[in-house]
């Protein structure tokens, strides 16, 4: 059973990170964003189920549990005799992953609850504030919050591009992709690198969709540029928080829009990360099956 742990917990997540890194900029962002997010989710579920299987094995290794249910705990221990630490390490990792996922889930719920106050006021909520901010709040229906400071920084065409971009997030339910990849990263640290790509791809997907809506990729590029300069020129209350965020996203988005549209890789390559996740899930099912067989073998 040790090879299952090795594959789904240790090998697959970093390999997925490499695949995502190779493919992220070479696929259409509208395809790549959901593919990368769900691949991360699949790899995360496989890793988590593996940890659960090994945590159950750890319990089955306890002599008292063995005598209670009538199996030989010795035989259960011997299955991974060369790596006796793997079962109990899994218990620790599972506890850490659960705690981290709970924190992530609660944080995002809190943000949504806090942002939900604007619903019912219309699709676009204008907030009188000189700081330049704009964001989409998902919900039924979702809405877009824009400050007057942001509106004044943009021309009418650029403002239309901003609204099209935020509407694209709401239409494509991008917040779900973000939540899924955030939870995946919370369950396995290596997947944090995938989350960073998903975060960027979701923005690129909304940019491209907005470019189609307003009929000009250049207008979207200039809207992003003008908005980012306005947001930076008048730093908001939390300016200090931005220092730690990975830089370069805004210039990369603008540069991508100013280049002709075109993706280097065939869309079929998108099956590679999905396939890896599915492989890991199937391998995990086998781990659960093996545990069942092991318990049966340990019964008298």
């Amino acid at each position, binding site marked *: 059973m040790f090879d299952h742990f090795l594959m789904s917990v240790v090998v697959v997540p970093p390999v997925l990170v490499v695949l995502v890194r190779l493919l992220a900029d070479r696929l259409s962002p509208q395809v790549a964003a959901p593919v990368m997010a769900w691949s991360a989710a699949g790899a995360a579920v496989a890793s988590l189920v593996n940890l659960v299987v090994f945590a159950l094995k750890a319990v089955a290794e306890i002599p008292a549990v063995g005598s209670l249910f009538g199996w030989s705990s010795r035989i259960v221990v011997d299955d991974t005799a060369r790596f006796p630490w793997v079962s109990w390490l899994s218990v620790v990792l599972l506890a850490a992953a659960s705690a981290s996922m709970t924190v992530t889930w609660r944080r995002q719920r809190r943000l949504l609850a806090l942002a939900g106050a604007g619903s019912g006021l219309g699709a676009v*909520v204008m907030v009188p504030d000189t700081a330049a*901010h704009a964001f989409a709040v*998902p919900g039924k229906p979702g809405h877009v919050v824009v400050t007057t400071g942001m509106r004044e920084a943009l021309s009418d065409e650029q403002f239309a591009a901003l609204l099209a971009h935020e509407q694209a997030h709401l239409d494509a339910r991008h917040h779900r992709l973000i939540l899924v990849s955030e939870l995946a990263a919370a369950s396995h640290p290596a997947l944090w690198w995938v989350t960073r790509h998903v975060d960027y791809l979701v923005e690129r997907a909304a940019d491209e969709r907005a470019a189609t809506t307003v009929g000009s990729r250049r207008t979207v590029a200039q809207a992003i540029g003008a908005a980012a300069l306005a947001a930076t020129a008048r730093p908001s209350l939390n300016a200090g928080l931005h220092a730690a965020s990975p830089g370069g996203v805004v210039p990369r988005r*603008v540069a991508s829009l100013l280049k002709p549209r075109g993706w280097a890789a065939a869309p079929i390559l998108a099956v590679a990360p999905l396939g890896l996740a599915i492989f890991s899930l199937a391998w995990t099912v086998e781990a659960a099956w093996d545990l069942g067989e092991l318990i049966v073998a340990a019964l008298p």
Partner: protein
Amino acid sequence: MNNPSSRRKPGQLETEIVTVLATASAPMTPGEVRHALCPHGSLSYSTVVTTLTRLHEKGQVARHRDGRAFRYGALSDPAGLVADRMTRLMAVEPDRASVLRRFVSTLDEDDERLLRELLNASEEP
């Protein structure tokens, strides 16, 4: 602590401020609140600011940034409420990886320079 208006009971100033904001037609700056409460100027500006800040921390008044100052409003006003929620949101929400999708993140110096170069190049035919 250093309440200059000894005629007021504790908490009375807070009640008076909330009343002023609730009856106002638009969100007010601390200076306007002070003038409405006490046209003769016996109430100090810092006392008004301190009290408004405390009321905002307690979630009893809404506020939003207007230039370098804050404007305060009553919580009954829906637009004021949204503005207040947004100000709080901006204070807690990190830039990246959030279910709320922001249009842009702010730029560091290198990004700003790079962005200006890109935009300048795109202006040329």
